[in-house]
């Protein structure tokens, strides 16, 4: 294809995203409506009732914080972060296993933030893959394709640390089913499924009666391109709360908040797609099919949380020749063996589940900083703590803007 037409299409893509990022008129219209609904809710539920809306993706939390969305919404709406950071919820044990492999001379391919993740136990004196980089052979990649290419060239025994949610699974599945993975490369599938974590965090917040319940969920947009919005209808049905599958631009998130409030005022609880430009109700059927073909669903351990039923993906037996758990002897954790794997004092699990704010943790920005992360939520840039550390929580910014009589 000619370069100009590529440029032309990218120009369109860019403008579409911008239409959801840089349109203050639209933002004003949405905020006006949000304000109206928030008033109606106030008269329905009383002045002091806080409407807790949980976002699931770390990227949604990033959007909320980075664009100062908390400073834009009315005071009775509280936006909380959920368990949507795959790096934060990867058990320490598997990183320890990866460090062992690296020290044994196996090339370990990893994404950037997994690379910095600190383990609970030291492995021969090392506590993260980044520490091993000088000793063993750890390589940073952005995708499985990068790892495949590099492994083909090197011909060395190697492993790819396959963390992620439903979004990455079809890619991994496709590579396995199409036989693209060379013999010397094994995949350590640590893929996690998001709905079980959402159920769990909604449950746990319900068990804590002092806390206001979650009244609405901003569901992951890109996970839903694969699973379809239908994956979330169980949430709206079982918990009786609105769920909106949202895009990642700030206007997407504001529209999703608006839709949630609208449903609450009307007394509805539906799963609705805001991110219509990319998500459909049924998702991508081929993606779902190949994932089911390559992977089996297992009960899986979540860091700091424990085992959640049917929440992880491992390669099926037919594809064991690609499987690091088989070929490289990586040890699984069994439900009985899982031990609490957060460092002492760290409240990441509560932060992950929307029970605590990063600022509630006594270690936040004291012992635990982006420079020297202590808990996993500070390591990954998707982690709520790391996001708050970089951008603040928004409260002070809001006050200053008011004092200076600045407007949106």
């Amino acid at each position, binding site marked *: 294809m000619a370069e100009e037409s590529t440029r032309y299409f990218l120009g369109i*893509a860019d403008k579409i995203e911008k239409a959801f990022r840089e349109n203050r008129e*639209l933002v004003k219209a949405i905020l006006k409506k949000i304000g109206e609904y928030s008033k109606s809710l106030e008269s329905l539920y009383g002045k002091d009732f806080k409407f807790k809306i949980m976002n699931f993706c*770390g990227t949604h939390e990033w959007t909320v914080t980075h664009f100062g969305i908390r400073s834009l919404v009315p005071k009775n709406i509280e936006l909380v972060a959920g368990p*949507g950071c795959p*790096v934060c919820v990867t058990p320490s044990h598997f990183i320890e296993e990866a460090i062992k492999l690296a020290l044994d001379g196996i090339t370990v391919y990893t994404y950037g933030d997994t690379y910095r993740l600190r383990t609970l136990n030291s492995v021969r004196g090392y506590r993260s893959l980044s520490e091993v980089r000088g000793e063993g052979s750890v390589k940073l990649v952005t995708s499985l*394709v990068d790892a495949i290419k590099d492994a083909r060239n090197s011909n060395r025994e190697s492993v790819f640390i396959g963390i992620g949610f439903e979004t990455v699974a079809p890619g991994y599945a496709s590579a396995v089913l199409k036989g693209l993975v060379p013999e010397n490369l094994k995949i350590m599938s640590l893929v996690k499924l998001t709905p079980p974590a959402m159920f769990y965090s909604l449950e746990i917040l319900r068990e804590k009666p002092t806390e206001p319940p979650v009244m609405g969920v901003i569901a992951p947009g890109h996970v839903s391109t694969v699973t379809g919005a239908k994956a979330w209808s169980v949430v709206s049905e079982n918990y009786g709360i609105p769920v909106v599958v949202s895009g990642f631009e700030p206007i997407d998130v504001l529209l999703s908040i608006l839709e949630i409030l609208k449903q609450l005022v009307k007394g509805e609880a539906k799963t609705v797609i805001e991110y*219509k430009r990319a998500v459909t109700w049924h998702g*991508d059927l081929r993606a779902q099919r190949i994932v089911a073909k390559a992977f089996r669903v297992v009960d899986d351990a979540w860091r700091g949380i424990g085992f959640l039923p049917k929440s992880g993906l491992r390669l099926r037996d037919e594809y064991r020749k690609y499987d690091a758990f088989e070929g490289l002897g990586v040890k699984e954790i069994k439900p009985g063996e899982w031990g609490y794997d957060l460092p002492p004092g760290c409240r990441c699990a509560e932060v992950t589940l929307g029970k605590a704010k990063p600022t509630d943790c006594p270690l936040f920005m004291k012992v635990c900083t982006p420079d020297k992360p202590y808990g996993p939520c500070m390591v990954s840039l998707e982690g709520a703590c790391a996001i708050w550390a970089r951008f603040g929580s928004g409260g002070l910014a809001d006050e200053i803007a008011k004092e200076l009589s600045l407007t949106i």
Partner: protein
Amino acid sequence: MCGLAKMCWGSPAVVVDVDLSSMIAKVDYGDGIVRDALIGIAGERVSRGDIVVVHAGVIISRLSDEGVLEHIKFLDEVLGEDAKEAVKAYETLLELAKSLRGGSENG
């Protein structure tokens, strides 16, 4: 490129070439450099000239004109009467959707 700072982030890219036998596409993120991406979705949904969402080197969705139009409909629904104030955004989006449609025809 390395790292994966935002796990849920997807970057829009244009499909430059598709190899359905390996289900690998060549995509351009806008820097004129062509990179490989695994096709995670149905192959028939991905063809040259499409704008796709790429996440960690995997094509996970395609931006379609129908999708954009649906999105505008959604804006209309949630904003109701106030939609007028956002007319500008609608106009640009409608135009973009049109050019997207023209694009996939010429693809």
